[in-house]
């Protein structure tokens, strides 16, 4: 990776004084997209945290053209925008910025349709692992064992593997990313947008409000997710898998920080016992085994 922070532009399309919670990773994610691509883009935003971060009519906190759209419809609306731009011979990238609920649950059908058709959009899912905007309800992306208001004993189901679902659609580009590794994310956004077709980036977004930790730890927890192996950074280009960032060196389990360090720091895992911890750890191990097969 040759990109450095000093190479990035000073322009801030996300204007200060927006309504996001202190330490919001979704706001940070959009700032990073702005750093990656500048302001010659169009955003499509379904219902979710980022809707509210824009603030109230007649003002908006984002200095980019945005189409807000209903919850299930972001990929389809983006397909429409992209088709119109094609007709008008414009190459302005169309970027969906959607939460996990609007992607893996209610939005999955329209995203699958767009991917199957290869519609020319970049879809970025900021994954704060629950329906945070409506008050921390469980989504398909909530990890196993996590507390939410609708999984008070800890989620009984595994996290839906959305990047793998996108890879199965045979789209040109799929990646995971984390707000804790901004240069990795920015490079992925830039690579993706240069390709034609449906591109998907799944951005880990540790939410202080929903995960129950103090806001100053937001990036640190994102980093620990990667360094413990709980969140794997990778990209899949034309079906070829490769690890990126620190994940490149974490195939060897001994090099990963203990998973407890990541979980302990979050109030949403405060209830877990040894058995649950073991289950979580073995799921993480299994993720690594599966990805090892894929990168061969």
């Amino acid at each position, binding site marked *: 990776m040759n990109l450095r922070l000093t190479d990035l532009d000073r322009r801030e399309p996300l204007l*200060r004084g927006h309504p996001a919670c202190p330490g919001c990773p979704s706001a940070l994610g959009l700032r990073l997209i702005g750093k990656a691509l500048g302001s010659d883009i169009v955003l499509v935003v379904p219902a979710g945290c980022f809707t509210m971060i824009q*603030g109230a009519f007649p003002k908006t*906190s984002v200095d980019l053209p945005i189409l807000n759209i209903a919850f299930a419809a972001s990929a389809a609306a983006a397909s429409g925008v992209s088709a119109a731009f094609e007709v008008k011979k414009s190459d302005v990238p169309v970027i969906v910025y959607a939460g996990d609920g609007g992607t893996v649950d209610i939005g999955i059908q329209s995203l699958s349709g767009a991917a199957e058709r290869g519609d020319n959009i970049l879809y970025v899912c900021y994954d704060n692992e629950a329906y945070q905007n409506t008050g921390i309800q469980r989504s398909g992306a909530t990890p196993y064992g996590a507390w939410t208001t609708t999984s008070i004993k800890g989620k009984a189901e595994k996290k839906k593997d959305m990047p793998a679902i996108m890879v199965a659609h045979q789209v040109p580009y799929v990646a995971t990313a984390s707000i804790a590794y901004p240069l990795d994310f920015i490079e992925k956004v830039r690579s993706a947008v240069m390709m034609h077709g449906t591109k998907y980036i799944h951005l880990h977004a540790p939410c202080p409000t929903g995960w129950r930790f103090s806001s100053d730890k937001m990036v640190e927890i994102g980093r620990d997710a990667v360094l413990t192996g709980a969140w794997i950074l990778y990209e899949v280009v034309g079906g070829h898998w490769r690890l990126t960032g620190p994940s490149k060196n974490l195939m060897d389990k001994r090099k990963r920080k203990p998973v407890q360090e990541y979980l302990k720091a979050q109030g949403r895992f405060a209830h877990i016992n040894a058995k649950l911890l073991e289950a979580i750890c073995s799921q993480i191990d299994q993720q690594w085994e599966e990805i090892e097969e894929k990168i061969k």
Partner: protein
Amino acid sequence: MRIVAVSEPSEGVAGNTGSWRLMKPVIDRERCTKCLVCWIFCPEGTIVREDDDHVHIEYNYCKGCGVCSNECPVNAIDMVEE
């Protein structure tokens, strides 16, 4: 007159969000190595990157989240009570 829900970009749509904070980040300019880590991680974009890559904070909107202080690799940012 607007006939449809079209909004214009503006700073401070949530008002003076600087009033939200309980603690205030203070940058020790001498200690700062201009690494820009605080700048990139601020969710508000309230850390201003100067021409020579020194940074200062726009306190009008800083919510005091503390990410900058937590991330600074040389401990140049302290969270102080206001």
